[in-house]
C-alpha cells in the first residue's frame, strides 16, 4: 500500500485523504481500472448479487434484532409483534426471511458457475476453498436464524439438527449437551443461537474479504476458462462490469421483490406459525428448501455398514447418514484435487459437461426427496441421488481427469470473442 506510485487526484479533499490513506487509489485499482476478462456472461453477476444479499441480510437483521426477544417465553410473540405492531416490521421481516432464500439462490448459482467453468482449478484453489467456508458459515447462520422465531419448525428443526452430533461415538452426547446448554433444546439454546446468528454474518464478511482479495490476486476466470494473455483480453471493471452487475442485480431484485410483496410465505412452512411445543413433533419435519438435498442424503443411509451376515457394525445407520451429509459439502474442499483435468471450462469438456448436468439433476432430485416422507420409492430415489452425488466427485471426476479428451481451445479470449461476433454476423 505504498503511496509512492500514486497518481494525484484533482479534487483537493480527495487528494488530502488519499495522500494520507490511499483509499481512493485502492478503490480505483481494484474496482475502477481493474482488468477483467471481456467475455463474461451473466453467470458472473452472482458474486456481486451474493454480496448485495449479505449486506441486505445484515442491515435488516440489525433492525429486527432491536425488536426481537431471545427468550422462549417471548420469542414467538416478539416476532408477531414485529409483524403487526412495529412500523414497517412486516416489510423488514419479509425482506430478511425471503432474503435467506434469495441469498442461497444467488450462492447456489455462483457455486454452479464455479464448477461449470472450472473456477476452482489452479491457481484459484484457495479462492474456491474460502468460498466453501463461506457457504458452511452461511448454512450455520441460516439454520440458527430459522430457530429464532421459536415456532414448531424452529424447535424441531433445531432438535433434529443438534441431535446429528449425538451420532459421533463417545463424545456425541457431551457435544449435544454443550450445544443445548441443557437436556433438550430450551432457553439456553435459543439464547446462544441468537448470539451466534448475530456474530456469524460478520465472520462471513471477514471471509468474503479474503475471498475477494484472493480473487484480485489471481484475477477472474471466464467462460472459456483460458488465461488472460494481455490487455486485449480485458476491459476495465468500471464502467463495463459495474453496469453489467447492476443490470443483473436489478433483475434479481425484481424477482426477490415479487416474493416479498406477493408471496412472502411461499418458501416458508406454515407449521412455523405455531408456537414451539416440546411435546408434539409436527407430523412432517422438513428443513428450509435450501437444505433439502443434504437432508435427503442424511436419510438415504438407512442401513448399518459392517461385515455382512454378522453382527459386526462399523458405522451404524445414524452415523453413516451424518457422515454422508457432512461429507457431501466437505468434499468440495478437495474438489481442485479430485478434478485435475488441465482444461477448466466445461465448454471444452463434453463428458464432464454431461456428468455435471446429471449432478445438477441428482441434486434437484435429492431436493425433492428431502421434502417427502421417508418411505417407499422416495428412499430408493434418495439413495440413487446420493450414490450419483458421491460417484461424481470420487469416481467420475478422477477418471475424466485422466481419460477425457478436451475439444480444441481458442488461442485467446479476444480472438474467440471476435470469432463469435463474425459467426453471429453471418447468421444474421
Amino acid at each position: 500500500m505504498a503511496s509512492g506510485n500514486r497518481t494525484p487526484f484533482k479534487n483537493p479533499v480527495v487528494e488530502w485523504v488519499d495522500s494520507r490513506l490511499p483509499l481512493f487509489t485502492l478503490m480505483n485499482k481494484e474496482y475502477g481500472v481493474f482488468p477483467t476478462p471481456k467475455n463474461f456472461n451473466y453467470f458472473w453477476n452472482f458474486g456481486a448479487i451474493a454480496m448485495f444479499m449479505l449486506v441486505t441480510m445484515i442491515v435488516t437483521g440489525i433492525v429486527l434484532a432491536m425488536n426481537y426477544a431471545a427468550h422462549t417465553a417471548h420469542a414467538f410473540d416478539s416476532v408477531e409483534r414485529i409483524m403487526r405492531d412495529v412500523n414497517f416490521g412486516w416489510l423488514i421481516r419479509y425482506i430478511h426471511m425471503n432474503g435467506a432464500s434469495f441469498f442461497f439462490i444467488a450462492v447456489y448459482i455462483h457455486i454452479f458457475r464455479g464448477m461449470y467453468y472450472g473456477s476452482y482449478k489452479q491457481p484459484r484453489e484457495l479462492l474456491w476453498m474460502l468460498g466453501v467456508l463461506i457457504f458452511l458459515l452461511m448454512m450455520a447462520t441460516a439454520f440458527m436464524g430459522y430457530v429464532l422465531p421459536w415456532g414448531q419448525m424452529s424447535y424441531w428443526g433445531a432438535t433434529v439438527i443438534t441431535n446429528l452430533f449425538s451420532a459421533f461415538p463417545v463424545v456425541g452426547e457431551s457435544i449435544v449437551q454443550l450445544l443445548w446448554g441443557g437436556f433438550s433444546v430450551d432457553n439456553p439454546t435459543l439464547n446462544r443461537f441468537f448470539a451466534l446468528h448475530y456474530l456469524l454474518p460478520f465472520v462471513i464478511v471477514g471471509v468474503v474479504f479474503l475471498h475477494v482479495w484472493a480473487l484480485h490476486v489471481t484475477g477472474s476466470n471466464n467462460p472459456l476458462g483460458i488465461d488472460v494473455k494481455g490487455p486485449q483480453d480485458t476491459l476495465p471493471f468500471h464502467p463495463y462490469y459495474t453496469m453489467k452487475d447492476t443490470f443483473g442485480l436489478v433483475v434479481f431484485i425484481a424477482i426477490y421483490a415479487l416474493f416479498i410483496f406477493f408471496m412472502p410465505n411461499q418458501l416458508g412452512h406454515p407449521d412455523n406459525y405455531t408456537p414451539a411445543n416440546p411435546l408434539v413433533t409436527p407430523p412432517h419435519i422438513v428443513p428450509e428448501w435450501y437444505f433439502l438435498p443434504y437432508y435427503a442424503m442424511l436419510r438415504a443411509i438407512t442401513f448399518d455398514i459392517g461385515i455382512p451376515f454378522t453382527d459386526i457394525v462399523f458405522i451404524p445407520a445414524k452415523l453413516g447418514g451424518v457422515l454422508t451429509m457432512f461429507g457431501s459439502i466437505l468434499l468440495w474442499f478437495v474438489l481442485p484435487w479430485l478434478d485435475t483435468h488441465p482444461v477448466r471450462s466445461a465448454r471444452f469438456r463434453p463428458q464432464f459437461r454431461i456428468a455435471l448436468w446429471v449432478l445438477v439433476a441428482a441434486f434437484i432430485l435429492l431436493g425433492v426427496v428431502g421434502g417427502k416422507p421417508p418411505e417407499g420409492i422416495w428412499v430408493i430415489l434418495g439413495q440413487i441421488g446420493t450414490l450419483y452425488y458421491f460417484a461424481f466427485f470420487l469416481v467420475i471426476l478422477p477418471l475424466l481427469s485422466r481419460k477425457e479428451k478436451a475439444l480444441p481451445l481458442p488461442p485467446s479470449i479476444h480472438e474467440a470473442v471476435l470469432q463469435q461476433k463474425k459467426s453471429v454476423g453471418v447468421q444474421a
Partner: protein
Amino acid sequence: MSSDSSSGDKPDQTKREFLYLTAGAMGAVATGAVVWPMVDTMNPAADTLAMATTEVDVSKLEPGHSVTVMWRGKPVFIKHRTAEEIAEAKAVNVADLRDKQTDEERVQKPEWLVVVGVCTHLGCVPLGQKETDAKGEFDGWFCPCHGSHYDSSARIRKGPAPKNLAVPPYKFTNDTTILIG
C-alpha cells in the same frame, strides 16, 4: 552455557530452544485456562443440572392407555400395557434386535412401561401415545420424522434409530405412583 568462538553466530542454541519451548508451553496452558471457562459456560448450568423429579399418579390409567409427562424438558411415555402387549414384547427373539434388551430388563413391573419419548435417531417425539396415532409395524411407537418403528417394549425394530427408547431412572413410591428422576 558459554559459547566458544566456532559457534559465535549461533550463541546458546540449547538455552534459546529451552526458553522458546517453556514460554510456548506456558502460553498454551494460559490460553487453555482462558478458553475452557468460556466453553464451559455453554454446558448445562447448575439450575439446569439440579435434577428435577416428576411424580405421576397412574391410578386412573386403564390398560392399553398411555400418558405423556415432562421430565427435564423431555416427554416421558408411561404406558399401562395389556397382557397381549406384554406377551408380544416377551415373545421377541432378542438376538434379532438391533439394541439387544429383553423386555424384563426394560421394566420394573411388566404392566408399566416407562421410557423417554425421544426418538434415539434425531430427537423427534414418536407417535403412538394416542388411540388414533400410528403405532408402527410393531404395535408400539412410530417416529414420523425419519420412519423408526418401536415395539411394545419401545425397542427399535425398523428404521434409522440406533437404540431403544431410553428408560429413565424411576421408582414406584406406592402401587400407583411413579417418581421419575
